[in-house]
Structure formats: C-alpha cells, structure tokens
C-alpha cells in the first residue's frame, strides 16, 4: 500500500524523467537504500540517547536533559545530534607507532558489514531491498566480517591495551558465533527455508505459532549470543574499562571513534531485528488467531491490529530495551566464565535442541510441525 502510494507520487512527478533503464534501476535501488539507512542512522543516534536515559532512570538519575532544539530543553532530545557534531570537530589522532592506513580502515571495516547486512532484511511481506534466497546465511557471513574491524584496530594501534582487547574480543565473538549458528539452524529447520521472508511467513498463525515457543532454548541462546557478539554488557570484556581502559578503541578519537560507536549500535539494532524476525514472527500480528477475522477488515483499526511494519518495530524495541536493561543490571562476566558459557553450556544445549526439533519435524508434532 505504502509502496503504491510512493509510486503514484513519483509517477505524478513525471518519473522516469526519460532516463536510460540502467540508471532508473540504479536510482530506485539508491533511493531504497537511503530509505533504509536514514531511519537506521536516526535510530542509532537515539539509541544512544535511550541508553543514557533508561540506565539513568534505572539508577534513579535523570540522564541527559539539557540539549534541546529551538532553545528549549525538550528532555535533552538534542543530545545525540550535539554529540555527533562535537565528534566531527574533534582532532583525529594517529598514534606514532600505528599502522596509519589500517588504523583508519579498521572502523570502516567494522561499520560496512553492520550496514550491508540490512540489504536483505525484510520489513514486511514483499518489503525487502534484495530478496536473495540465502538471506539469513548472508547476514551471518557478512556480520562475521565485522570482527576484522576490532582485530585490525587492536593491532594497528600498536598499543598494548587495544591489542589485548582485540584478541579477547575476537576469541569471544568467534566462540559465540558457533552457538548463534546452531541456534539459527534450529530456525531454518522449523521454517524449512533460509530466506528471512519465508521464515516469517512460516510463523503465520498467531502468537503461539511463532518460533519462540518450540525453539525456546534456541531463542534465549540466540539473543544472549547476540549480546556477546556485539560486545555489549555483560560480555563487554573487550572494553572492560576497569582492566584495559577502553579496549580496542583506546587510541581512537574523533570521527573514527564515532564510526566504531555507530557500528556497535547498528549491530545491536540488527541483532534485535533479526531476533524479532526469526523468533517473534517479524511483522506478524500477535493477535492473529486470537481475534476474529472480521476485526482485521475494519479500516485503520484493522490494519493497526493486523500484520505490519509497526509490529516489527515494537518487537525490535523490546529487544533493544533488553540490551539496555542487561547493561544496567548485570555485572561484567569474567573472561573464563564467558568462554565456559559459550562452549560448555550453549553449544551442547543447541546441539541437543536441534535433534529435538529434528524429531519433532520428522514426527510432525502439532501444533507447529503437523502440516507440511
């Protein structure tokens, strides 16, 4: 519906303005990318704000409340913008012993995959930029490149704290990627497809049909691994300010530092969106199957209660809130405990649950796997 609206709007402007076909295709794709990236960047910016606010309230503080717009304070809503502008005007320090080129490339390598993964994320049925078949695999592969950003940053700085941090976080990310991969296998089995859109479609039928229930252990493991993958508290030994100052970005300042920051938050949002798509039915409405069909036909109210982008946003926000909540609540894990959790708890659990799901599928256990 939305798409059609936009199309008719552009048709009204005289699109395609007599452009050759390849340019038309290119422009449409570019426009779509902008439509994805701009809200994403805004989300990243306000996630930092939300983080400070939420944790502030949890600790009975107020959080940022000074910077607003138009000379008003507006609960500090201008804070992220001000931060960005400040970082832009900061000096970029290139440490003396550093490998200058790699030092500057590292944040780009951290960020590019965090953004590129969004190319295949569906926001509704048929609402996806690149409808590739192996989209989940693509996301897994492209995000696994992100670890290079950290490794390279740690090495190129030629400083001890970053180096230690890089090694730690690389080993950690790598360990949790296995648990995450196994958890995803469970989802693929349940959905019978590797395409994100199809995976959501396979969860049709209301709240109790979503995969979070039959795949509950995998769901929990997936999200915890996601937290560990993004180096967030309580798994943030890569930053571990009490031991290694600030980890791999000790030597970074100004914009390169900001890019790392952006990559981290973009990854958080990505993990949250994926969790909603894979386990909570993405844009599907939880009310399906609970309310009579006729309700969804009411104008406005029906489309609000029925499936749509807004559900995806709500679900994603829930996960993002968990991220912040974790950070405010849990003390940091010790490194050996992190490795133990990943290897000795999550991996055996996922393997067992994969077999359980396999048996459920083969035997056609209702209510999830009874019909092909």
């Amino acid at each position, binding site marked *: 519906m939305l798409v059609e609206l936009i199309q008719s709007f552009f048709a009204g402007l005289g699109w395609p303005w007599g452009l050759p076909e390849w340019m038309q295709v290119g422009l449409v794709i570019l426009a779509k990318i902008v439509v994805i990236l701009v809200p994403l960047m805004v989300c990243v910016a306000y996630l930092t704000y939300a983080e400070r606010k939420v944790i502030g309230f949890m600790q009975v503080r107020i959080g940022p409340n000074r910077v607003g717009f138009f000379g008003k304070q507006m609960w500090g809503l201008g804070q992220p913008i001000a931060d960005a502008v400040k970082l832009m005007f900061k000096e970029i320090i290139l440490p003396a012993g550093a490998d200058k080129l790699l030092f500057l490339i590292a944040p780009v390598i951290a960020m590019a995959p965090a953004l590129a993964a969004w190319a295949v994320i569906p926001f509704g049925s048929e609402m996806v930029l690149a409808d590739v078949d192996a989209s989940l695999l693509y996301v897994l592969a492209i995000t696994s490149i992100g*670890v290079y950003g950290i490794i390279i940053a740690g090495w190129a700085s030629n400083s001890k704290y970053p180096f230690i941090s890089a090694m730690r976080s690389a080993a950690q990310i790598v360990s949790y990627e296995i648990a995450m991969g196994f958890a995803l296998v469970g989802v693929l089995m349940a959905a019978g497809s590797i395409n994100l859109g199809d995976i959501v479609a396979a969860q049709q039928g209301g709240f109790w049909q979503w995969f979070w229930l039959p795949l509950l252990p995998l769901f929990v493991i997936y999200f915890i691994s996601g937290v560990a993958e993004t180096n967030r508290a309580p798994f943030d030994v890569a930053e571990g300010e009490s031991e290694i100052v600030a980890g791999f970005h000790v030597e970074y300042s100004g914009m390169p530092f900001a890019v790392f920051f952006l990559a981290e938050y973009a990854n958080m949002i990505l993990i949250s969106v994926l969790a909603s798509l894979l386990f909570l039915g993405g844009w599907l409405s939880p009310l399906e199957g609970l309310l009579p069909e006729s309700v969804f036909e009411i104008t406005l109210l029906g489309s609000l209660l029925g499936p749509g982008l807004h559900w995806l946003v709500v679900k994603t926000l829930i996960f993002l809130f968990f991220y912040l909540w974790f950070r405010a609540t849990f003390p940091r894990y010790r490194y050996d405990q992190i490795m133990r959790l990943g290897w000795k708890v999550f991996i055996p659990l996922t393997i067992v649950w994969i077999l359980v799901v396999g048996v459920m599928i083969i035997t056609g256990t209702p209510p999830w796997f009874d019909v092909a």
Partner: protein
Amino acid sequence: MSFEQIIFYIFSAILVAAAVGVITVRNPVHAALFLVMCFITTSALWLLLEAEFLAITLVLVYVGAVMVLFLFVVMMLDINIAKMREGFTGYLPLGALVAGGTIAVMWYVANNDYFNLTNMPPPERLAADASNTRMLGEQLYTTYVYPFEIAAVILLLAIVAAITLTLRHRTGTRYQKIDQQVRVKRDERVRMVKMESEERK
C-alpha cells in the same frame, strides 16, 4: 560487454591484484588481509556462477573463521621478516621463469576447443526464486552421504590432531568449579552460633 561481464572483470582484477599483494607486501599482517580480500572477491566470482550457497559459505568459513586464525598467528609471531626475505630476489628470476612458463602452458591449454562456447554453452540462468541451497541439500545428505560422513570424520580427526598438537596444561591453575559452587547448601557454608550476651568489661 554485458553488465555481468563488467562486474566479472572488476572483481577478477581486484582478485589478481590482491593475490599479487599477498606475496609481495612486506608486512605479514597486510599479506593476510590481502588474502581476506582475495576470498571476498572470489566469493563474488562464485556468486556470478550462481553458486550462491558456496559463495556465501566461502565468506563465512574462510573470511569469518580461517583467516581469523591466520591473523591470530601472524599478529603474534615474532618473525624477522627482513631476514626471511633474504634470498627472495635470488630466486626471483627462476621463479618468474617458472611462473611465466606455467601461465603460457595454461593459456595454451585453456584456449582449447573444449572450453569454447559451442562445446560448453553457458548454462541456463536459474530462475529468480530458485534455491541453490535447497538443490545442494537434496543431493548432499542422500546421494553423497558417504563422502558427507567422511567429511565428518575428517573434522573429528582435525579436532583430535589440533588438541594433540597444541594443548598444554599450565601447572598449578585453579579452576572455578561451577557445578559445585551452584550445588552448595547453606549449611555447608554458614554456621549458626548461639552466643550468650556478654557484659562489657
């Protein structure tokens, strides 16, 4: 030239340049990173061949896993690169000769009738919704079950070999025994002592 061909040539050029970089740069970390670039561009080339699953798996496994190990090793090694490179120039003429010869032979062989477009017409493009992964899966676990299980054995062997060759235990390390820690009862740690109140002297 079609768009696909342009893409092909761009990626091939990057691939060859990166491959040359791997063997010519002085810094081993840079070499490893060039290798990463090789893998990524190779993956793009595989994708052009419609080997979707394999192309993405190449990135997942080689870039995401194998090269991380490589970087671990390379970054932590204290090797004197300058010393290792002694003799490189000495062998350069011979190496160049062999490489040139090999390229010439391969050129001669690959320019063969077998590989021209009449004998090997380009295969039909897959439909937009064809699932490469699914096609692979339908064969791998049934028709090729024997090689598949051998692959599992090789992985098992790799685990055994890796542990046999690298694992050393540090002596005198104390571990946290988490199961015992969790199982602990209050009575084992806390002792209630009844004491008479005493008068301060």
